[in-house]
């Protein structure tokens, strides 16, 4: 795609690891600081999209095949709904996390962590698969036209 942009490629390689780590920080620290599943999912997806933009789609799909992303899309919703059903099984209401652990507070913590993880998984997978869907089609206008 863009083999000649040496600076872009080097900077991207340096940036991707911090982006992914920051995504996980936002994901699992969402109870304590701004952030949560939606933002973390987007940031995580941005890491892969950046890689895809600079290094081309084929190496990205080698790391993260399309069918895996599609499975994760559904998995996130299932984690979220499954947490709700788990609360139902343990004697509470649907999406009531207080019953998930010994104390209601611990249960709420666990529940929030799980549902945020579900949200993050779905959002990241959806964003990456939308990017794949757009980028895998042959572009109508050539690189010089921009």
């Amino acid at each position, binding site marked *: 795609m863009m083999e000649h942009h040496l600076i872009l490629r080097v900077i991207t390689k340096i940036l991707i690891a911090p982006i992914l780590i920051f995504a996980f920080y936002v994901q699992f620290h969402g109870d304590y600081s701004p952030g949560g599943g939606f933002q973390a999912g987007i940031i995580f997806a941005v890491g892969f999209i950046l890689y895809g933009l600079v290094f081309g789609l084929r190496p990205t799909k080698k790391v993260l095949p399309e069918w895996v992303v599609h499975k994760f899309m559904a998995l996130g919703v299932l984690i979220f709904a499954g947490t709700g059903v788990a609360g139902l099984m343990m004697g509470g209401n649907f999406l009531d996390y207080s019953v998930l652990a010994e104390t209601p507070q611990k249960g709420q913590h666990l529940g929030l962590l799980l549902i945020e993880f579900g949200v993050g998984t779905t959002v990241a997978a959806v964003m990456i698969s939308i990017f794949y*869907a757009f980028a895998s089609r042959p572009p*109508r206008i050539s690189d010089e036209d921009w």
Partner: protein
Amino acid sequence: MLVVTAISIVRVRKLFGVVMLSGVFSLLSALLFVSFDAVDVAFTEAAVGAGISTVLMLGTIALTARTEKKPSHSSILPLIVVTITGAVLVYGTLDMPNFGAADAPIHTHVAPEYFSRTPVEIDVPNIVTAILGSYRGYDTLGETAVVFTAGIGVVLLISGLGRRRKRKKTDVEKA
């Protein structure tokens, strides 16, 4: 600055510039949210508005066309409608409480209850997360389902089309 950006988005004909300007617009509104102390919203706006949607818009431009079409009819009627709507909205803000007023309805309705109940019942410092995840769990589940549905829709529409076209091409080659 938001107004200047918005006007230039309307005036610029090259879609590449429009996409970049809407990214700028998102970033500016994220700054606005930060100054309102709505850090969670600002975070989302910066990540989604300025980041992802810019990339997706560029992807769309690559698939379609690079410049806007000339409008086929005059823009006077839409201008009148927009002006009237804007005037009504501005008139509506006259009734709103002052910015930061402690007795505004938003601060006296359910917010105090969330603030007093969250440390006891959920015990997480970020009350936004507590409200989104726990008190409004159904809403967030619904939002996730919406994102999921949108993703499936895009994948079905765009990837499916590509596959069908490829199949047609191989059919033609066989014939």
